[in-house]
């Protein structure tokens, strides 16, 4: 049957949409870069003047030490966790929904958190703990109501129903947020709401890190350990079922992990956009589709990206630039670059 071998028509060879280096080696490079950026950012700042702090000053100046370990370090760790969480969760969402255009907050999580934060600012006044708790609570209320609504929709597949519910619930919270902004005191409450919505790590302290550390670590661990199975969940349910997967159960576990890490970091940092959408695309550009590598890659790239953005946010001007503005700006620009550069597909 030798004619069979010739009969397959070969399409023109497409260039591998990534680097030719082995994925493991590339991950190692990204890890080294991330650690490097962490150390660099720890020493970078505006004290006593813009630049890197010297070891000598660190040894002699008590204020410098306190600045580094009580202000910069918790902030840097939070930036790292924020970037890793949003990116890993973004990758989970994009795989599970087989849709490269979703981001971790879209199931009512982001808008829920925003509404919760604004509500707390108006009702409870300016209390960081209150704002965080309320944001966290409403993030899960957003997810829960999206989920319940999806179960009640009478048409379409499960994914379509979840996406639709997510959009509707987000819109509800968004209009609720509009009402809250309208009734907020324009001199005291409104600026605070706006600041929260723009996202910032300026006020992060050790207790914040302590609060989010465990849930974020657990969630990331679940996502990391199940990263290969994300590939299975990106298939149609019938197919993943035929491959021995329990699609419903495994998807729920991963979704809960992804939402938990997202809600945790959003509760302390506010709205930090575009990280969760853009970074997984960048990872796929480097590693191809396999979630075994894109998940880890997303975490490393996301952590680095957030630390760099926050570095710019706190050093570029003498005042603080809200982090969310920077991530959206840089993220959107990068996304444009990704879309128009060769061999990258945003859809299909």
């Amino acid at each position, binding site marked *: 049957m030798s004619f069979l071998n010739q009969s397959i028509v070969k399409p023109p060879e497409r260039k591998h949409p990534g680097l030719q280096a082995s994925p493991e080696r590339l991950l190692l490079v990204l890890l080294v870069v991330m650690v490097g950026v962490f150390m660099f950012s720890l020493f970078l700042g505006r004290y006593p003047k813009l630049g890197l702090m010297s070891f000598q000053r660190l040894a002699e100046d008590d204020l410098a030490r306190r600045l580094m370990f009580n202000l910069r370090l918790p902030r840097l760790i939070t930036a790292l966790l924020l970037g890793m969480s949003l990116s890993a969760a973004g990758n989970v969402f994009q795989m599970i929904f087989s849709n490269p255009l979703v981001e971790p907050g879209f199931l009512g999580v982001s808008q829920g958190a925003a509404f919760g934060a604004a509500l707390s600012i108006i009702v409870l006044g300016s209390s960081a703990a209150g704002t965080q708790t309320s944001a966290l609570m409403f993030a899960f209320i957003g997810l829960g109501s999206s989920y319940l609504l999806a179960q009640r929709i009478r048409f379409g597949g499960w994914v379509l129903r979840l996406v639709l519910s997510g959009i509707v619930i987000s819109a509800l919270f968004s209009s609720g947020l509009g009402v809250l902004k309208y009734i907020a005191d324009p001199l005291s409450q409104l600026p605070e709401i706006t600041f929260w919505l723009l996202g910032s790590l300026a006020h992060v302290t050790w207790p914040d890190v302590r609060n989010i550390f465990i849930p974020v670590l657990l969630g990331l661990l679940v996502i990391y350990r199940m990263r290969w199975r994300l590939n299975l969940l990106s*298939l149609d349910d019938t197919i993943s079922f035929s491959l021995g997967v329990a699609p419903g159960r495994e998807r729920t576990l991963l979704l809960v992990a992804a939402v938990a890490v997202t809600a945790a970091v959003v509760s302390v940092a506010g709205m930090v956009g575009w990280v969760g959408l853009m970074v997984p695309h960048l990872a796929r550009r480097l590693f191809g*589709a396999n979630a075994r590598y894109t998940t880890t890659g997303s975490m490393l790239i996301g952590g680095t990206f957030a630390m760099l953005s926050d570095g710019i946010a706190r050093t570029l001007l003498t005042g603080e630039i809200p982090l969310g503005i920077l991530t959206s700006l840089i993220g959107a620009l990068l996304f444009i670059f990704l879309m128009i550069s060769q061999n990258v597909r945003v859809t299909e």
Partner: protein
Amino acid sequence: MSNVLLAFEKIAFAYDANGKTVLNELSLEVEQNTVTAILGPNGVGKTTLLHLALGWRVPQRGRVLLDGKPLNTYSRRELGQWIGLVPQYEHVSFDYSLLEYVLLGRAPYLKPLSMPGRKDTELAAEALKTVGMADMMHRRVTALSGGERQLVLLARALTQQPRLLLLDEATSHLDLSNKLRLMDVVQNLTHEGITVVLTTHEPEVAASIASHLVLMRAGKVEHSGPIEEEFTGERLTVTYGVPVEVSEVSGRLIALWGHENLHRKRNRDGQ
């Protein structure tokens, strides 16, 4: 000892509890190491039958037995090791390489948190070789033609090392060469102890690779048995509700369908 691998016992199934019954009082036995073709018009419940065999759909009444035991006594992973599926079409959302995609077939053999290793990769490469795509394993699935994709799906199902392989209209959209290649591979599977159940609406496909034939009509099995007995003009005419004649040309069974006027008219137009 019975050599029945898969049995449907008086199955009743409807997608909506109050809706139209898709399958009604359906009973069928599939013997080990056979290739069974399920033939019938569109919408008769062929795909539903495969989904029931897979355990993806659960019948309202009756039961499905795999190797003598009800499906629900198997764990998810066990079923994944027993049964493979080649769907009619599969949407690929991300840019996987052929090898990465075929490797997904190893899922039922891996522990929940582990990932495929060297041995799994070898099996996947082997399966790609079987379907004649060994030299393409680093290509992107999304860059393949529909027919080639179908072969990749077959390779993934082979990587699963199933005892029972279900093919749902797997040849429908293939050109002749890909169709031939797929049929060649499928026909040889029985030598490796794999039982095949395939649905098709192409009588020729059934006639050339199946050992057994199941004719379905209105949610029921009308006839089932060895292909030589069942593949007759009379039976096919009833099944499809269109005149069908069966002839033997160079030792092969072929089905001629449609009324004579249609074909005469074509001939005249061609002159």
